[in-house]
């Protein structure tokens, strides 16, 4: 009897809950199909030394952060200072993939704002970006020592994201010193 009258209210409440959850989700943030799978391998010319080939072989066997960046990307500028901080405190080796950019601009950027990367690979035509499923820079992949993608973050990195999403995985993935 009371249920008869409560049922619409309950249905409404459930609907509202679904909407609230739906509205707080970012539809741009997609689960990476690479999560917990082997990271794509790549080999590209280095940004700084065009004749030198760099790639995933350079961090084989070590945990690494792979950051996809470009000078046209506003979020990359936003997170750059934080990447500099991470590099300064030797949190992890950071490797850059300079995506769909042009070399003079990218070099000027690194000169102006600092270079947190062990190296940046230069992906001029975006082929490697496609292999990594990149669709919106900045994107940051955490790669385990075994080459497995442990985490992917879309958008600028900052301290809170780092502490919440990356630090637990990093301390779990590498033996305590």
């Amino acid at each position, binding site marked *: 009897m009371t249920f008869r009258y409560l049922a619409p209210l309950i249905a409404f409440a459930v609907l509202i809950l679904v909407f609230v959850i739906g509205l707080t989700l970012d539809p*741009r943030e997609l689960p990476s199909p690479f999560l917990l799978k082997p990271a794509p391998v790549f080999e590209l010319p280095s940004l700084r030394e065009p004749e030198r080939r760099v790639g995933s072989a350079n961090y084989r066997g070590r945990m690494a952060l792979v950051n996809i960046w470009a000078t046209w990307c506003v979020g990359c500028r936003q997170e750059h200072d934080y990447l500099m901080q991470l590099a300064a405190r030797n949190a992890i080796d950071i490797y850059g993939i300079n995506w769909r950019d042009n070399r003079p601009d990218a070099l000027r950027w690194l000169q102006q704002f600092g270079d947190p990367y062990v190296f940046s690979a230069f992906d001029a035509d975006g082929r490697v970006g496609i292999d990594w499923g990149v669709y919106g820079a900045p994107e940051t992949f955490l790669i385990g020592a075994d080459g497995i993608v442990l985490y992917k973050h879309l958008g600028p990195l900052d301290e809170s994201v780092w502490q919440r999403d990356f630090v637990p995985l990093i301390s779990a993935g590498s033996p305590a010193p």
Partner: protein
Amino acid sequence: MKIAITFLAILLSMSVALAIDTERAFDDPELQARYETIISEIRCLQCQNQSIKDSNVFLAADLRREIRRMLGEGKTDAQVYDFLVARYGEFALYRPRVGGKTLVLWLAPLLLLAGGAVIMLRVVRRRMTLPIDDEPAADE
């Protein structure tokens, strides 16, 4: 400053719009038809409500280029879709394939329809037992 950046962004996007590739990709009409079907089935991840056929952002152009290359190499449609799903997930397809995680997506309409039918049936059944007159039914 912000306004300047926004303005610049708009200008830049306009220059890209001029560059959308409209010329035919293949001489072979059959290949061209396959190509056009595929690119209209792939979601542009940067501008999620457009297919890569309709979108002029560079990522869509890059993906079109990759698809042209693969078709040119004689890859099948399934291979092209697999290539994209492996990198961008099922979300990249406007018609996700049946199975696994997308099963819920495909079955949800049927389940909702069935649920509605059950409720309707029950209501109709109950009403059929009510006396046929305009007297308000006694409160249960």
